[in-house]
């Protein structure tokens, strides 16, 4: 029988989260973010958090909700500041911000999940990102040594999941979710649709359940769009 990772609700899913922990939060912009987990973190009011997330949400949604409540001490991201409160906290020094090239961020999460403590990448060589880091040439090209990232909890969002923790993402809502799922000591997956183990085609699973410790079916997804761009029908 498949292992059962299902928990009753978002409250049980977040059992054990504490002040000063490090969290990974999936999503790119507001696309594919774990809305239910974020709401529950706000509700619990835990503080001093380090959040590893490609972006920091907008003022009134996503990680912006945690910023509003000053629950975040440090952001590790590649692109931020679509968010006035973020900017205010950063400029005032209330918020520590560690900016990382997007590809290095993704690969560092994967490395954390894959037991690879460090790897070389060309990204950031010659820039302030490489300061204090080992540089080595391979094939005549300089590369920077980057280290793995892990987290106490990883919060990810998928489209479908089964009780064994297997996940399927939809379109570009996949983004950082699969690597963060690998890198969480406890990975909490919320899904739009939770099905029994065996209901998903084992060929089509994006994140194997082994990476997921807790799974639940989320509710009330807003799935906000940051920039609606359309063309006219002509």
């Amino acid at each position: 029988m498949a292992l059962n990772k299902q928990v009753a609700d978002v409250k049980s899913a977040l059992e054990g989260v504490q002040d000063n922990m490090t969290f990974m939060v999936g999503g790119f912009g507001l696309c594919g973010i774990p809305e239910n987990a974020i709401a529950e973190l706000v509700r619990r009011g835990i503080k001093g958090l380090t959040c590893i997330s490609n972006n920091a949400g907008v003022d009134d949604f996503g990680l912006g909700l945690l910023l509003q409540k000053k629950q975040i001490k440090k952001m590790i991201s590649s692109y931020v500041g679509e968010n006035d409160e973020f900017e205010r906290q950063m400029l005032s020094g209330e918020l520590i911000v560690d900016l990382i090239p997007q590809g290095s961020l993704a690969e560092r999460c994967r490395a954390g999940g894959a037991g690879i403590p460090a790897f070389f990448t060309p990204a950031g060589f010659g820039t302030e990102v490489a300061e204090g880091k080992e540089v080595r040439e391979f094939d005549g090209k300089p590369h920077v040594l980057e280290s793995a990232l892990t987290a106490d909890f990883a919060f990810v969002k998928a489209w479908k999941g089964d009780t064994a923790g297997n996940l399927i993402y939809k379109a570009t809502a996949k983004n950082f979710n699969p690597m963060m799922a690998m890198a969480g000591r406890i990975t909490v997956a919320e899904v739009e649709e939770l099905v029994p183990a065996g209901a998903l085609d084992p060929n089509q699973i994006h994140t194997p359940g082994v990476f997921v410790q807790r799974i639940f079916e989320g509710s009330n997804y807003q799935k906000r769009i940051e920039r609606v761009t359309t063309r006219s029908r002509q």
Partner: protein
Amino acid sequence: MLSKDQIAQRIAQELQDGWYVNLGIGIPTLIANHIPEGINVEFQSENGILGMGPFPFEGEEDADLINAGKQTITAMPGAVYFDSATSFAMIRGQHIQLTVLGAMEVAQNGDIANWKIPGRMVKGMGGAMDLVASAENIIVAMMHTNKRGESKLLEQCSLPLTGVHCVKKIVTNLAVLEIKDGAFHLLERAPGVTIEEIQNATAGTLVVPDEVPEMNV
């Protein structure tokens, strides 16, 4: 002098059939509107799609389908979605033939600065550092001068760098230039723009050949 759309149009002439292309935010995005006849390319957006199509029809936006600029998009037949690690594996592994992006400054040694202005709010480099450090073929699309009229083509970048020795070609509202042997080499000028105007707008070393044809836009 070229409009932003004409800059995009000129860069589109550089596209070769069968290329995968990553277009940055701003002017580069416009290139997709000017793909020459008979040239077939596929667009990658680094948040996780190959085969990016045009914006959706009104009412058909999908919150789960966006590009790296967080705009709603569509997928072409044959498209594929993937995670961010795979996306940058494509970029870092040089599977993408062309990257076009904007810049605040470009130096005559190929350095580029486009992510940070000291003292101002820093939004982050996003994927730009990975893209410029990895791509074999980078074209910078930008205005020749900044809003204060200062040249963006410099002997040396003054802003924090995004990448070093990586830019090979620049298309501005005034000219097409190549970076070679530590200098900007003027290849083409915008219709009606004189070599003197380009010289005046270029702070770095500019090499001007005997013939500088007008761009065909």
